[in-house]
């Protein structure tokens, strides 16, 4: 291994560490934000005692999870029982590396230009879909290995729900792929920089695709109103009934990281990624300030989605299981096919 490769490996390692740390911090504060916003919606305050205005609450929660008693059910399938939360968290974190956080930037002092993306490769979008689909096993195996009826029901519901909605999710993305002609996420974001950074795909031909993606994404992350796998009024706590302490925390973490990555994908594909309107004209291409504004723009768009998630949780009731399946198969799936048809026709007629 020569010097050049070693430097690249170290740089890559630093980039991954920074991205993971920032994302995990944001995820921790999403939990706090969720509790505060839910409090607002329900006319109460939410946690506000630990630190200034509750700002240290996530760390207090983490400490509580670490210190709690770790209970393992006697008749559980031990190996799979321990493997399941690891799969869930790992699959959630692994997609993080392909999202472009910002544009090309000239690094000061290093005389080096770099793109603010950890790994850029040909099939980035397919990689995201693949890793996400492996994440199902975390929940399904957790439900099975706990040796508990409610857990098993939760696991079964979850796998049925996730393989159903994965279809409409994938089909919703095809419109964007047709329009951009590539699976490389960085290139897709670059294509949306037209018209001073206003060429967002949601505005140009993909509002329907965006809607379908949003619905399926909420179902994929098992959030209200599609949180059947952990419906507390029917299944105690669903697939994680038998999980306690840090292993439960891992599932919790995986759910919120999934929310985050799904929002990242929605932003990247439909809301222009890091494109902030007129930022390039103001600051100039490649400057540090432009990169900073772009990254902040990217994060603001993600926060909008996270807020949407919390908002939905505070205001919507849960679907019944047959309603969930009917909605996925009889409404979203045909709609996604119609979207593909419209997009393909318009591209064929050279309207775009």
């Amino acid at each position, binding site marked *: *291994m020569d010097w050049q490769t070693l430097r690249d490996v170290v740089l890559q390692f630093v980039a991954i560490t920074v991205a993971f740390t920032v994302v995990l911090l944001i995820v921790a504060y999403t939990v706090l934000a969720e509790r505060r916003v839910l409090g607002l919606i329900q006319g109460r305050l939410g946690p506000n005692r630990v630190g200034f205005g509750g700002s240290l609450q996530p760390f207090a929660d983490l400490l509580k999870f670490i210190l709690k008693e770790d209970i393992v059910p006697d008749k559980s*399938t031990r190996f*799979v029982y321990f*493997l399941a939360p690891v799969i869930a968290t790992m699959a959630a974190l692994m997609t993080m590396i392909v999202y472009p956080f910002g544009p090309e930037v000239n690094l000061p002092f290093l005389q080096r230009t770099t793109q603010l993306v950890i790994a850029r*490769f*040909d*099939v980035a979008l*397919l*990689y995201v*879909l*693949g*890793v*996400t*689909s*492996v994440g*199902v*096993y975390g929940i*399904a*195996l957790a*439900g*099975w290995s706990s040796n508990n009826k409610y857990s*098993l029901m939760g*696991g*079964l519901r979850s*796998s*049925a729900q*996730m*393989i159903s909605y*994965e279809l409409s999710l994938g089909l919703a993305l095809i419109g964007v792929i047709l329009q951009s002609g590539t*699976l490389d996420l960085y290139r897709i974001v670059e294509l949306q920089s037209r018209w001073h950074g206003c060429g967002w795909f949601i505005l140009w031909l993909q509002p329907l695709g965006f809607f379908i993606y949003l619905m399926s994404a909420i179902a994929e992350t098992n959030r209200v109103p599609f949180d059947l796998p952990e419906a507390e009024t029917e299944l105690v706590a669903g697939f994680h009934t038998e999980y306690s302490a840090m292993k439960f925390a891992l599932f919790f973490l995986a759910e919120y990281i999934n929310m985050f990555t799904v929002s990242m994908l929605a932003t990247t594909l439909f809301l222009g990624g890091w494109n902030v309107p007129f930022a390039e004209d103001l600051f100039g291409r490649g400057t540090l300030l432009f990169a900073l504004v772009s990254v902040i723009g990217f994060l603001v768009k993600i926060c909008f989605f996270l807020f949407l998630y919390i908002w939905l949780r505070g205001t919507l009731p849960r679907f019944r299981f047959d309603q969930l399946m009917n909605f996925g198969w009889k409404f979203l799936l045909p709609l996604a096919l119609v979207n593909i048809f419209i997009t393909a026709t318009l591209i064929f007629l050279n309207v775009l």
Partner: protein
Amino acid sequence: MLALLFILFAGIAIGSAIAVVAQRNPLYSAISLIGVFISLACLYVMLAAPFLAAVQVIVYAGAIMVLVVFVIMLLNVEQEERRTRLSFLVPAAVGLAALLIAEVTFILYWVQVSPVTPAGNVSDTGLTASIGTGLFTTYLLPFEITSILLLMAIVGAMTLARRTAELPPGARVVPGAQVLALNIIDPTVPLDDTTAIEAHTTVEVAKILGIPDDHDPARRD
């Protein structure tokens, strides 16, 4: 470095493949099979075929194996009991293993002595664009035939799983009969029984024959 990674992924693939057949618990076998698929995907990436790797994970690990795990969980399949296997399987397995090893040795030997030097490791055959171009130009016919085959499989599965089926117009049922006779399904064949009743769907036939309907909404509690 590459050789090290290859040994790692190939080792995981072989180990998981052995675990698939050695495990007694069906779910453990399924998990091992997922391991095989994922390490194969890693090997595809090393062979500069990222598209194939991604599709391998999405289709096999992400869709097919989820269904397998789903079915194992739903039926709650118990651990298979140890029983005596068919005795001819052991020599057959030994023979097939010898054949496989011979094949691999042969290929490795001929790659070594082959006068053609392989092209550099930079190639675009594994990239999405070139695979798409190939599928929709040179290999369009096999691609379309495969799609039609898959479509037929889906339609067939749906027909088999369907609860209510339409009968040809004029189909008649004889009350008290155990099965539908051929001349009842086919109305062109003349009937000799005058008690036959006309029916339009399989549900109506079941009602006339007195077969209880499990999926009747009125009977559901």
